Structures are given as C-alpha cells and as structure tokens.
C-alpha cells in the first residue's frame, strides 16, 4: 500500500484515524507493518503490502 492511503483509512470498529507502526518499505510501497487505531489501540497488520482491516472477530485463527 502507498503511505498516502492512510488519509482515507480508518479503524473499522470506531472509525478513528490509524497510525503506521514498524513500517517496512520496498521502493515507495509499505509492504509490512501495523496500523494502530489512535483511539481504541486495535492493531491491523499489513501483509505483503495488503492492509488487513478485518475486525478481530473475523480474522483467521492465528497460529498458536
């Protein structure tokens, strides 16, 4: 994803802004990192450049 995408993304739960943490870049793409809600603190991973903004109850079972 492009970093400028942050302007239109928001937390799916409470619609507050997201902050990019631990960003990994490839050219001008953000390919890894975490989007963190500035209000509720929920964390959304960026997986190979694709932001996974599924609410936590819909995410696939994470490996134990």
């Amino acid at each position, binding site marked *: 994803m492009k970093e400028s995408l942050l302007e*239109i993304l928001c937390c799916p739960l409470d619609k507050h802004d997201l902050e990019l943490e631990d960003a990994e870049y490839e050219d001008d793409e953000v390919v890894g990192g975490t989007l963190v809600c500035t209000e509720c603190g929920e964390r*959304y991973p960026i997986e190979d450049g*694709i932001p996974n903004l599924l609410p936590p109850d*819909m995410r696939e079972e994470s490996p134990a």
Partner: protein
Amino acid sequence: MGVLENKARARLFYKYLSTVYDRINPFIWNERMREEALELLELEPDSTVLDVGCGTGFATEGLLEHVDEVYALDQSEHQLEQAYAKFGKRAPPVQFHRGDAERLPFATDTFDVVWSSGSIEYWPNPILALREFRRVLKPGGQVLVVGPNYPDNPIAQRLADAMMLFYDEYEADRMFKRAGFEDVRHAFMGPEYEPEVAITTIGRAPE
C-alpha cells in the same frame, strides 16, 4: 438466516469455490450484465471508486474500463488471490484491502461511487452494510448493488430461502431507503434464458 449468511461459512465456502469461481460466474453474471450495470453510473477517469466484495475481480475489471484506479475490499484471501493474479498486488490500478462490508475501514465522505456485486447475499445485516456505504460516499455519490432477484417459482423460492438472502424490488427499496439513500431505482438483468436473475439497485447519498 440462510446457510451462507454466516461469514465463517461464507469464507469456507469461497475457499473451495474460488478455484472454479470465474468459470461458474458467467452463467449468472456475465460481461453484458456488467456493462448494463456500469452504464447506470456516472464515472469519470478520476472518480474515486470502491468495490466491496470484489472477490476474484470480475467487476473490478469492468470498472477499470471507466476509471483509472479502483479501491477493492474483500474478506476472503482465497478470492483475492485470483484478483491479484489479474491486476497485480500493488496499486495502481487496484488498491486491495481485506475487510468487512458491514464495518468499512474508510473515512466518511471518501468515495464518488460504491459498487458491490454478488456480495449482498452473504451479509447478515444488509442495512448495516448499506449504511456504511452511505457513510463512506461523498454527498451526492452513487451506490450500485447487484444481488440475486427473488425467484417467482415456489420451488426455487424454497431453495433460495434455505441458501441465502434473496430479495425483490420492494424489499430492496425498503433496505436502501432505510439506509438513507435517495433516488433509489432498480433494474433486472440476466442472460436470455433467465432475464431477471439479478436485481441491480442504484441510489444516491443525500447532498
């Protein structure tokens, strides 16, 4: 509550269906129907368009004939893999997201057009999703949703009720108006042998 109106089941279903989906798809939702639906929209090359439930990217492909870039969202990574293969994983032309139609991860007043085809039948609460569409649309922006038309035949009706959400134009009208849309209109589309298999609804977010 139909069998597939459960997101976990829908996800599992699509995990297996995604491999053959584009081969099945043209029988119920083909390029001519897609073109008819696209003609209902006011699209400019620089329009900001969201495709909710983009799946394998069949509608995304049609939208890209009219606009330069599409924002696409789906819950199923297996469906999205097919779309990545078509358009590449990096924007442009498509910015992909994983997300839920009923809880969109986009700011208010963002899009000129929100499109969704072949997805509404899996939403547990369609009005919630439609309200989200209205929220992320700019004032005056257009919504377009393609879903399965409720069949006239009683046997087909029983099958439809057991499987997923089907609706007719009265039900669609009620849902879109409750979600706050204006100028709500419906069009029926389908292949020659079943010309009303799909119902397409368009509406506008209030100014």
